[in-house]
């Protein structure tokens, strides 16, 4: 799963994270590999429960044991082997290295601290500023995320702000870390549609302004089209396909990706809504072989027994798929 030419800024190899519950081991993330080049935006897409958030938290080593544990894999951030660092040095990775915007702005801020202080804390830790300088930088960040009258808002508490404003604060905190990589975990999913559009526009503008590398987690394909350069599809804890975003509409190779795209295309063309038969699998009792096989219309015998390996579809390292019988456009 190596990208050619450019050395990636973040690479994740064979990541596996499990939750050990009384009922058994849940492989929330299983053998996930991808990499991010500097300045690009990779969308991590999948239905809820497919392991997107756990992937993100694993990269930052924020999985709480018990019950969760990273069981395999490695993460390389700009030459640093993240998983081999002692916990003490993780704070150089968190923030400065990788910052994260969580999906629940309502409860992701400390209720008893002013938002200004919470941004300033990120500034102090990651930019090395102190006192007045740090405060000024925090107020500047409020301006960057288009909060009106930032000097006054600095002293507001989270409960005095709306959901959209809080998400702007979350973005400000993440950006105040000056991260090499920004992980945005469904930053708009709990906001209403107009606010969603505002936040997305803000993120697009900021992306142009500060040229960060973004791992954008979402289950909304409309957002993918607007934000991402490349797309990584997840299903039942596994990464099943990585491809350039234009190919997503053009030539999806995994039957699951195609199924999802098919359902959107049908809606746009006014035709019948095509669906993927069946339900997402229970992570405690995953189907053998390819986890998608019970729902796959192209399923063969081998799919039921063998987990497919990653295939480099075009031989140029750009389009990877995890399927025994990937679909090709010419077929």
């Amino acid at each position, binding site marked *: 799963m190596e990208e050619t030419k450019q050395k990636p800024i973040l690479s994740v190899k064979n990541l596996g994270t499990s939750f050990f519950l009384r009922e058994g081991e849940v492989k929330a993330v299983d053998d996930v590999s991808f990499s991010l080049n500097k300045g690009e935006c990779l969308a991590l897409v999948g239905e809820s429960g497919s392991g997107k958030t756990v992937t993100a938290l694993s990269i930052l080593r924020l999985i709480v044991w018990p019950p969760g544990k990273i069981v395999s894999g490695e993460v390389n951030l700009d030459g640093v082997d993240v998983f081999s660092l002692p916990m003490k040095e993780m704070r150089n990775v968190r923030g400065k290295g990788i910052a994260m915007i969580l999906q629940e702005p309502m*409860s992701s801020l400390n209720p008893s601290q002013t938002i200004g202080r919470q941004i300033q804390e990120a500034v102090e*830790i990651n930019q090395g500023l102190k006192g007045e300088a740090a405060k000024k930088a925090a107020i500047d960040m409020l301006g960057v995320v288009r909060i009106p009258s930032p000097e006054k808002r600095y002293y507001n508490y989270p409960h005095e702000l709306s959901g959209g404003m809080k998400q702007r604060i979350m973005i400000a905190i993440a950006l105040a870390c000056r991260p090499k990589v920004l992980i945005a975990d469904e930053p708009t999913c709990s906001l209403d549609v107009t606010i969603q559009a505002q936040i997305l526009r803000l993120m697009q503008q900021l992306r142009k302004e500060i040229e960060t590398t973004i791992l954008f987690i979402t289950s909304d394909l409309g957002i993918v089209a607007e934000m991402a350069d490349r797309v990584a599809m997840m299903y039942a804890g596994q990464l099943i396909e990585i491809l350039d975003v234009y190919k997503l509409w053009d030539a999806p190779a995994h039957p699951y990706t195609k199924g999802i795209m098919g359902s959107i295309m049908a809606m746009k063309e006014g035709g019948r809504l095509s669906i993927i038969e069946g339900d997402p699998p229970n992570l405690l009792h995953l189907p053998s072989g390819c986890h998608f096989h019970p729902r796959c219309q192209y399923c063969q015998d081998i799919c039921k027994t063998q987990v497919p390996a990653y295939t480099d579809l075009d031989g140029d390292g750009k389009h990877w798929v995890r399927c025994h019988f990937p679909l090709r456009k010419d077929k």
Partner: protein
Amino acid sequence: MGMGKYIAQRLLFTLFVVLGISILIFFITHIVGNPVDIMLPLQATDVEREALTKALGLDKPMMEQLWIFLRDFSRGDFGISWWQNRPCMEVIMDRLPISMWLILLASMISVVCAIPLGILAAYRPGSILDRVVTIFSTAGICFPPFWIGLMLMLIFAVKLGWLPTSGMGTWKHLVLPAVSISFRPMGHLAQIVRFEMIQQLNALYAVTARAKGVTEMTLLFKHALKNIMTASLTMIGNDYCKQLGGLSAAVEVVFGFAGFGHLISETIENMDFPLLQAEVFFVAIIVCLINLLTDILYAAFDPRIRY
């Protein structure tokens, strides 16, 4: 609403509570029995009985009695203690302040020990340290304080001779009783702190804080500690009231400490109704004031609470 207005409102409310409690006290004493029967020996004559009834004002209509009772209470006149033959107010003022100090000291000891213990336990739930703290706090709650007092007395007063065995007068006399009293509130508080802290460390805002590079120490003390204060304050205030309301009696008796708890038990032994009334009245007022104080302090820790 402004803070001043809120406090004024709460004080007014406290006044109503105190009035209600006074009326309750009045009726309870009338249900308990005729004070004349209790005060006079069995062989007292009818003349004597009538004289006392008149002296106590018990021959007047109920409503008038209640009125006189409330009027006297509002003036701080709680009548004469039967047992000590001097004004109840005087008796209480001799004994209440020293106990308030004693229990305050006990509360401070319990807070100073319980908060670090609770945090230590919450830092790694399920660890050996956590189990030790849990066992210690449960023991603190379960062991009777007077037994703890006796053990402490044996070790620190009898064996080591560092502190006086009993009596009062200097700060040294306060130490052992205060420590004995502090165990139970310490246990309660440590468990509350542990529980609340675990919640805070698993909250989403903790993920945000860790993701921006905050250390666990900063997370604990700069972020989470403030958020567990409302629950902790409730517990601290509650335990203070319980101790003052008579729980401290056994310990005070053990250490020959002439405090308020001790006074309550003596009052009951002597069937001294006027004094008991006055004591209940004082406890009620203190409970109201402490609740008011904790409510005001909430605002200092939780910005969502505004008065």
